[in-house]
């Protein structure tokens, strides 16, 4: 620490003793300061770290972090969206906070990716409790946990890689054990196996790998009989991640398959009566319920919601959305055919979440956001000021959360985002 700053802090100390009135919120009990701060949008929290030292300490207090997380996970109707763009070259993350600006043009802000030197290209595997799980899209063997609002990130231990493989990821939090888990469902083939002439490689073998965050190694759960379709995130509902299975010889109909983060078992979940899952493009959690977006004829989108988890009769066709083309997207732009490996072919409109006003937020062809009001059947474009042309939308929760594992406590001060000197 240089002399100047030391002098500064000394002067400051005496001043506090002389005049306690200047300390503002520090005079308030900590719970009250927490209560006020927990009502603020995430951008304000991040900024207010540099109000003064006391506020910075306040904002790093695990109690506040938990309180804020509880608040923001309850309020799912004011999402904080993370936009991931990997086109044309550099990978960037952006965010839009629906809690911060209501009834306005949504401002899109760019988030610095502090790990870009180690992982220049990545995919978003999932978002849970304010943490993003990212995978290296160039080499496919690194995984990172990243909180875009604190800048903290951590590389996860490496898992076993097969030379020729296809991976379905899942990331979720187990509320019962308070553990985060990453699951890799790996489909692979032996070098000389498979059918060389088929257009799509057939991966006949599988292995399920699980990592509990904080543990040094991945565990293997053996093989899985379902062939799951890769999606950006395996909708987390009721402590289980969900995917749709591919049809195969002995199971011709697609299934709705869940993975329980507690007992680590795969189980089937009753399907909606939407005429098979062939046209189901998305599984999402809407207001905490497992929901399936089904793309129908004449560009119509049906959204089925399972009101009571695991109860077949509780599936309801909640939204029936007619065709809509967001303004300004009339002409077809040039775009490389495969930007995202996990992007499902044929997906036009993706369901994101239900907003405060009851409208449902949708994404159009990775290019625009719009909302649909089920009351009057009207569409509304969400103007994204400063958004990239192409993006993958991830419904996120803005928080200052971080994974509390014993191994993190050791290097808490030394991680990349910790502020300089104190």
């Amino acid at each position: 620490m240089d002399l100047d700053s030391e002098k500064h802090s000394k002067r400051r100390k005496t001043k506090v003793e002389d005049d306690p009135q200047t300390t503002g919120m520090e005079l308030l009990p900590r719970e009250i300061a927490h209560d006020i701060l927990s009502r603020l949008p995430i951008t304000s929290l991040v900024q207010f770290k540099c109000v003064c030292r006391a506020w910075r300490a306040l904002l790093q207090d695990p109690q506040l972090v938990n309180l804020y997380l509880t608040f923001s996970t309850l309020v799912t109707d004011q999402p904080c969206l993370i936009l991931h763009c990997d086109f044309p070259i550099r990978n960037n993350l952006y965010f839009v906070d629906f809690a911060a600006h209501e009834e306005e043009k949504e401002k899109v802000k760019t988030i610095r990716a502090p790990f870009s030197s180690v992982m220049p290209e990545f995919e978003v595997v999932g978002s849970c409790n304010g943490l993003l799980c990212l995978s290296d899209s160039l080499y496919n063997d690194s995984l990172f946990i990243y909180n875009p609002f604190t800048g903290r990130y951590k590389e996860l231990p490496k898992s076993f890689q097969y030379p020729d493989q296809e991976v379905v990821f899942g990331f979720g939090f187990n509320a019962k054990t308070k553990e985060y888990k990453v699951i890799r469902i790996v489909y692979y083939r032996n070098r000389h196996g498979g059918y060389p002439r088929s257009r799509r490689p057939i991966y006949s073998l599988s292995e399920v790998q699980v990592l509990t965050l904080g543990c040094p190694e991945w565990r293997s759960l053996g093989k899985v009989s379902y062939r799951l379709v890769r999606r950006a995130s395996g909708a987390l509902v009721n402590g289980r991640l969900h995917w749709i299975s591919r049809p195969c010889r002995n199971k011709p109909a697609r299934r709705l398959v869940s993975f329980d983060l507690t007992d680590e078992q795969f189980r089937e979940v009753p399907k909606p009566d939407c005429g098979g899952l062939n046209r189901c493009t998305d599984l999402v959690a809407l207001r905490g319920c497992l929901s399936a977006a089904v793309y129908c004829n004449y560009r119509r989108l049906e959204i089925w919601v399972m009101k009571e988890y695991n109860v077949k009769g509780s599936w309801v066709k909640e939204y029936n959305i007619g065709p809509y083309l967001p303004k300004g997207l009339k002409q077809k732009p040039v775009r490389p055919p495969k930007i995202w490996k996990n992007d499902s072919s044929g997906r036009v409109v993706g369901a994101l979440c239900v907003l405060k006003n009851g409208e449902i937020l949708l994404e159009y062809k990775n290019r625009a956001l719009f909302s649909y009001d089920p009351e009057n059947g009207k569409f509304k474009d969400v103007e994204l000021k400063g958004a990239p042309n192409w993006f993958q939308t991830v419904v996120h929760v803005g928080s200052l959360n971080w994974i509390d594992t014993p191994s993190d406590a050791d290097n808490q001060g030394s991680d990349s985002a910790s502020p300089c000197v104190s």
Partner: protein
Amino acid sequence: MSSSTDSPTLTTETTQLSPQPDTETAKPTKKITLKSSDNQIFEVEESVAMEFATVKSFFEDSPSTDTVPLPNVTAKPLSQVIEFCKEQIKFKANPDEAQKKKYNAEFVTEKSDKDLVDMIPVANYLEIKDLLDVLNQAVADRIENKSVEYVRSFFGIDNDFTAEEEAALRREHAWAYEGVDED
């Protein structure tokens, strides 16, 4: 089914249990004296004073006293808190959520920043949960999306970071400082 024969007897039993409310006749309103730290005396109706959990428990411990000293509370915020609680009593007797909401909103909008901040420790000390909630939200509304400088002046906070430290903190989350609301 056998259970259907049981149910009528059950319902007759429950009807007998209808409560007999003992109608309280209007008592003469008792006044309670509150004394602020700057020695100002406030005479308030008992019902209003009982809104203050701290005062209430004071009376439960020593019912014979007639003046409650409030050593942590100055006169101005106390008078505003009393004003708020008087209104809340009316809403308690005559519930009207919309009207209450409107009053609460008006109560905070007409207060200065300093008044709000000064009232919070008072509401906290006197344990008036509703008011605390209203005040905390009001303060949050006033500082959300504002600049760091605005927040410092709002609470009268001195910046104790060195210029280099602050610059480093701002660099770290440069995106967050874009597009804040005007002060």
